């Protein structure tokens, strides 16, 4: 057995004007493997694309991931079930409410309280998720546009997204990574004036989406860059486990909100958007159309909230419901004085419950559950295993970007280098979800 030696690749130092000499004498028949990323403005985050190129044609493409891995799943095993929300929300940072919703729906199924979550909380969850879908698609289109050179699409998209982030800040307190959806309901009720603020922001959001449509839909350069790029037909999609806009661009109307509804989605009126060209252009059109559908759902949520009137946003079971009430005081947001008066002054049981729920957390009966939601990128699902304790025994997230990135090789090999950018942009991976 010969001893193993570490072989470094040959290093060429090109000092200007001598590339032809180097190529002629040294490379010859050798393959050129080029790293695109992980630090690159166009690879959608810290994605390392290892491309073997022959001139401008990509002969082999592979993805290197893991640069954003922060051990979220393992960390969740050492926190209570409620604290887990604050971790999972940071996975796919453009769709935090979807991770929260998937996780909390999973915990509620493990607890068996799915039917006891108040209706107001469910409607607000749908409202927040659809607003998040709009924000996420705006980022996808904005960054995708920027990556192919349509810089105005980026500015328009992010300006429209600002409206959505302002709404999130009004409702949840944070622009991103809200940790607002909790097992059992929501962290807080909607602040007064929310419905009017959302209605007030709608024209601006509509204008932004309409502007993107006008800039991109029939643009000959966009069409030249995106039509027939990143082609993946239905067989390929199912084999590679694709879901979301990529699967719907093949014409299959698979949307978990319709097929396996959660959070009352079966009661909302919206259409599943498909396109039939299996290419990047189809995914662009699907994302824009899905934003219009999301606006319809947001309208329906607002009508329901107006009709519903005030109500609880946390389940009534005090052994599970998050005890702390927050209110804005003189120095910012903190525990409401009424709640403190109650737990410190009047009710010993309330104090005990508050203490035990915040420090220890509630216990979840043993078992496992798989809860999937339709995130903007595809099927986002969580596999939760409980050992009967106050902490998740295992929380594994099936992130759509992680699965969808497997298609990079299929989509890009044989194409041009510039088409790699367009194909990856149409997959719309978010590296936080890929790496977790």
């Amino acid at each position, binding site marked *: 057995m010969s001893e193993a030696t570490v072989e470094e690749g040959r290093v060429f130092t090109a000092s200007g004007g001598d590339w032809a000499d180097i190529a002629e004498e040294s490379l010859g028949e050798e393959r050129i493997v080029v790293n695109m990323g992980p630090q690159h403005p166009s690879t959608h985050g810290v994605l390392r694309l290892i491309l073997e190129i022959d001139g401008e044609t990509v002969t082999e493409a592979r993805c290197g*991931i893991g640069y954003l891995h922060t051990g979220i799943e393992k960390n969740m095993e050492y926190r209570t079930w409620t604290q887990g929300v604050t971790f999972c929300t940071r996975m796919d940072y453009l769709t935090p409410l979807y991770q929260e919703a998937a996780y909390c729906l999973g915990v509620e199924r493990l607890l068996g309280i799915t039917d006891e979550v108040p209706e107001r909380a469910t409607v607000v969850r749908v409202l927040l998720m659809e607003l998040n879908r709009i924000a996420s698609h705006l980022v996808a289109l904005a960054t995708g546009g920027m990556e192919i050179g349509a810089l105005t699409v980026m500015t328009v998209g992010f300006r429209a997204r600002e409206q959505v982030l302002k709404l999130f800040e009004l409702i949840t307190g944070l622009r991103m990574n809200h940790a607002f959806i909790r097992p059992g309901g929501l962290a807080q009720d909607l602040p007064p004036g929310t419905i009017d603020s959302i209605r007030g922001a709608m024209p601006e959001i509509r204008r932004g989406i309409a502007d993107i449509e006008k800039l991109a839909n029939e643009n000959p350069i966009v069409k030249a860059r995106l039509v027939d790029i990143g082609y993946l037909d239905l067989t390929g999609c199912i084999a590679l486990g694709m879901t979301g806009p990529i699967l719907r661009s093949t014409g299959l109307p698979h949307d978990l909100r319709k097929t396996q509804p959660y959070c009352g989605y079966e009661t909302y009126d919206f259409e599943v958007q498909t396109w039939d060209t299996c290419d990047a252009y189809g995914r662009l059109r699907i994302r824009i159309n899905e934003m219009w559908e999301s606006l319809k759902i947001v309208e329906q949520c607002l009508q329901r909230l107006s009709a519903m009137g005030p109500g609880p946003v946390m389940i009534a079971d005090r052994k599970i419901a998050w005890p702390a009430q927050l209110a804005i005081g003189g120095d910012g947001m903190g525990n409401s004085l009424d709640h403190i008066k109650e737990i410190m002054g009047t009710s010993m049981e309330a104090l005990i419950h508050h203490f035990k729920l915040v420090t220890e957390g509630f216990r979840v009966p043993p078992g496992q559950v798989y809860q999937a939601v339709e995130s903007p990128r595809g099927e986002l699902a969580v596999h939760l295993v409980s050992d009967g304790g106050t902490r998740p025994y295992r929380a594994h997230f099936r992130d759509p970007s992680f*699965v969808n990135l497997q298609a990079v090789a299929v989509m890009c090999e044989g194409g041009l280098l510039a088409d790699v950018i367009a194909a990856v942009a149409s997959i719309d991976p978010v590296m936080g979800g890929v790496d977790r």
Partner: protein
Amino acid sequence: MSDKSEPKELKEAREAPLKAGGTPDVAPPLPEAKETPEGKTAADVAPGLPATTGLEAEVIGTRTGMFGQRDTGDTSGYGGLVRTVTMPAPATRPYGSWFDAAADTLGETLSGQGTRVDEAIESVVVDRDELTLNVRREHLVAVCAALRDEPDLRFELLSGVSGVHFPQEIGRELHAVYHLLSITHNRRVRLEVTAPDSDPHIPSVVSVYPTADWHERETWDFFGIIFDGHPALTRIQMPDDWPGHPQRKDYPLGGIPVEYKGAVIPPPDVRRSYS
């Protein structure tokens, strides 16, 4: 809700094995003498999965005391409470909704291929409206192919492969959990395969579901399960030369203690636990 006499989750833990058709939550006997399916054919009408393999509910552990702390003196009396915690027990026929028909179809397909059904499928768990098939690892690829190709089953999409590490289950420490989705029939099923720490090999299903590629790489990376037949089983999230498998329960969480003046807050896995 507020007039329940006991906490809801205790009630659930007690009732869950009953709902699944298993034994109630008392200390169950160890699974020593399993009754063979031949002895159960009278009850087992369909040529599918065995009615019961005789396995009792999986015991996770014993919880003593009502409250979290262990050291301070607890004079309430609740400190003497002893409860066994069990995972949902294997189910007996009928499983309910579409599970029976699917189990029958799967059983027929496997028998047609010459595989004994009770060899391929260890047990079936029906819990929280989900069907879980515990598959023996040697037959995993055959079961997956049957689930994918049979027209009545047609689980075309593999959602993901997830690893779970149970260090206390000697001989069955590493679990690989496969979630399948049937778009045609709009259903989900879960397959659970176990492997011991001493021989952490599970056949790869990439030949049946190509999407399992990265999922199996991730499960290898985090748990050390070696998927035989995988085209390129390398680390995917951790750096390529990382030693160890981070999401195993015997791997520390890591982290640098936070230092304050006169105090140190240790990383979360070594902090005081309230439960």
